[in-house]
């Protein structure tokens, strides 16, 4: 309820801002895109991943460089972002001047012509140091429309005590990972009625796709401009067979659950391992560590207790990057993250480009990394630090893969084809049969 109400308010606020922004947009258009005129620049950030400190930095730096312009940052909820962009970006009077958009949603909008050509800025923004998968997702016919903002990679969290009780070690290859998960499942050291060695819910293709990628499989491939589903390829099938083995022998996670909140079962002692973006560390809350601090308690004592609790949780929890086929390699896990682009209908093209330069400046990129996000320019990834979480995140991010940069990929996700596929595989359907059906649907959707 609360979310509904706040998003309603946000919509109202956005609407009102849009009205006031009309003037700003026209002013800039009058000046012929000179870029030095005053006005208001609107940046849409998606979700709350960008910390306040970074937002303040953007506003201060931008306004220092442009004394007669203001920067307004508006936060958009990830939920329903696509339909909101669909309406806002098509209207000259309502469009923001710079938008953050999910990496998997990016191709749909770049193909539709929603963003301005920024190919000439490629070198200036970081060139080949930019996260290449994300650059691909923002490129159409060698024209660059959107650049990577940040990425978050998935890593495996595990309960050290449960590992010790079952007598297993951190696996070093993908095959070993399956064995470890199976051993844990059988040992069930916590005695929970439905225990999972590895928490893998039936619809969780975000994590499951790592097995497909490890064997060289793909979700879809492009040939002469035509996309075809590639789940039936021998490589993909090898990956899907292993996923099915995990489903049947290493997890008790419900077949009707998805990748949301995997830490709940982990916190309840119902799972020994789960895979999630590394910021899941803040959601771990083991009963043995819980200090019973009330959620609304903001006192110093409460903060101290929470810090103690967090340290305890992190001591009892280990993390590693999902291993690849060979010892010492890392599996190409699914990369979550976002792109950033300048809407074609924005009247503040030059100012927006200036803001883009600030975002890709060394200071800002370093700040992103310091806050646990893998920056769009990998040159600054070192600033992630060297704790286990940063190491796992970096190791996983090196080879992380995105969804195919097809124009209509968002439709595949909208139709939930992959959720359905993984659920069928979890239910025991022959992977070849399920994949053939999904391939057909993907091919029909993408072309």
């Amino acid at each position: 309820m609360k979310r509904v109400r706040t998003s309603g308010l946000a919509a109202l606020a956005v609407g009102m801002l849009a009205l006031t922004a009309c003037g700003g947009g026209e002013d800039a258009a009058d000046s012929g895109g000179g870029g030095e005129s005053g006005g208001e620049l609107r940046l849409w950030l998606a979700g709350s991943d960008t910390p306040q400190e970074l937002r303040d930095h953007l506003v201060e730096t931008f306004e220092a460089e442009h004394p007669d312009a203001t920067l307004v940052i508006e936060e958009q909820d990830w939920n329903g972002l696509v339909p909101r962009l669909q309406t806002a970006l098509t209207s000259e009077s309502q469009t923001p001047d710079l938008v953050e958009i999910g990496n998997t949603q990016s191709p749909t909008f770049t193909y539709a012509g929603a963003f301005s050509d920024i190919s000439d800025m490629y070198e200036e923004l970081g060139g080949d140091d930019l996260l290449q998968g994300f650059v691909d997702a923002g490129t159409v016919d060698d024209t660059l429309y959107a650049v990577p903002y940040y990425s978050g990679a998935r890593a495996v969290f595990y309960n050290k005590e449960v590992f010790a009780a079952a007598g297993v070690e951190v696996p070093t290859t993908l095959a070993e990972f399956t064995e470890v998960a199976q051993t844990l499942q059988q040992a069930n050291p916590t005695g929970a009625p439905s225990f999972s060695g590895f928490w893998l819910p039936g619809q969780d293709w975000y994590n499951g796709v790592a097995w497909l990628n490890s064997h060289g499989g793909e979700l879809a491939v492009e040939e002469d401009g035509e996309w075809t589903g590639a789940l039936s390829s021998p490589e993909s099938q090898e990956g899907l067979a292993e996923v099915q083995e995990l489903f049947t022998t290493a997890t008790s996670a419900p077949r009707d659950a998805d990748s949301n909140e995997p830490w709940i079962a982990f916190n309840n002692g119902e799972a020994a391992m789960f895979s999630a973006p590394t910021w899941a560390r803040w959601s771990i809350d083991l009963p043995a560590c819980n200090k019973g601090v009330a959620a609304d308690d903001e006192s110093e004592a409460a903060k101290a207790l929470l810090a103690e609790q967090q340290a305890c949780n992190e001591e009892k929890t280990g993390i590693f990057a999902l291993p690849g086929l060979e010892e010492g390699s890392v599996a190409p896990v699914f990369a979550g993250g976002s792109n950033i682009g300048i809407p074609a209908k924005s009247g503040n093209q030059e100012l927006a480009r200036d803001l883009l330069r600030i975002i890709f400046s060394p200071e800002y990129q370093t700040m992103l990394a310091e806050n646990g996000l893998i920056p769009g320019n990998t040159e600054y990834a070192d600033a992630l630090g060297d704790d286990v979480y940063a190491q796992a995140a970096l190791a996983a991010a090196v080879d992380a893969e995105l969804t195919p940069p097809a124009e209509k990929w968002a439709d595949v996700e909208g139709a939930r084809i992959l959720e359905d596929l993984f659920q069928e595989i979890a239910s025991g359907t022959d992977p070849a049969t399920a994949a053939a059906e999904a391939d057909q649907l993907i091919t029909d959707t993408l072309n």
Partner: protein
Amino acid sequence: MSAPPAPAAPAPAAPRTPPPATGSTAAAPLRRRRPLPARVGPYLLLVPALVPLAVGLGYPLVRQFVFSFQEYGLAQQFGRPAEWVGLDNYVTLLSDPYVWGVIARSIAFCLVNAALTMALGIALAVLMTKVGRAARITLQVGMLLAWGTPVLATMTVWQWLFDSQYGVVNWVLAGPLGMEGQRGHSWLIEPLSFYAVATVIVVWMSVPFVVFTVYAGLLQVPDECMEAAQLDGASSWQRLWRLALPMIKPVLFVVALLQVIWDLRVFTQIHVLQRAGAPTRETHLLGTYIYSLSKEFSMAGAMATIMLVITLALTVFYIRRMLREDEA
């Protein structure tokens, strides 16, 4: 002083109005006597109601029709010209067996749900006329709560009840009732049990409306008739079937008509349950299927038009019947 004449005034006014309606000769001089503004006036009063209707309902409907004969997607929204494709969208949809499956499922779901809602609603309404005051008020409050809770809040509760891991339903079945196989049972994963859960929720949410409407109707049945029937030896069952229900038939028709229309376009409940983990493609009904096409406005438009035709076809019987009863 002014109070007594007030009720008296409408009394003569009432008989004055019918004559112009029945006698055409009386109507003619009446119309001639009234100046133009007076004649247009009532229609002007309709404007505030008609304009929003035309804008809010007419405009989208026209756009939907236009879209359905075009190729119109995201790119067209950003300015690419829309191509006219004639009946292509309709042909694509109607030649797809999957679409026919969705249509068949939707109609079956709609009829089952409307029938169940009506049966339960009438039963509860009759119950309300039989029980004492305290029980009736309890029933009414319960109904109002079910009716008044926002859909999404209701859906969250039901979703939790049927959650495979932590849901109350599985907990009760596996724990106290000892059905160990129900632990972790996924209710939503098989289409049939998915629709069963959906039916429970949809019926639960629309029964109150039927109960209140039918109960209001039953209160209008004159006691004298019922007493007379009782004196003639009719059992209470016969009094209900032969007397009370036939007397409130117009009410039942309207309610049934609304139920059919509502249950055919059911969206929120199905959409939320799908997101809770059901296989999406196997559980689409018309509403959610159209939504899934929403990036391709032209396809969605064509599908929505097909749905409009189905709705009209399903309700034509009721509408004709209603019109006939209006004339009588």
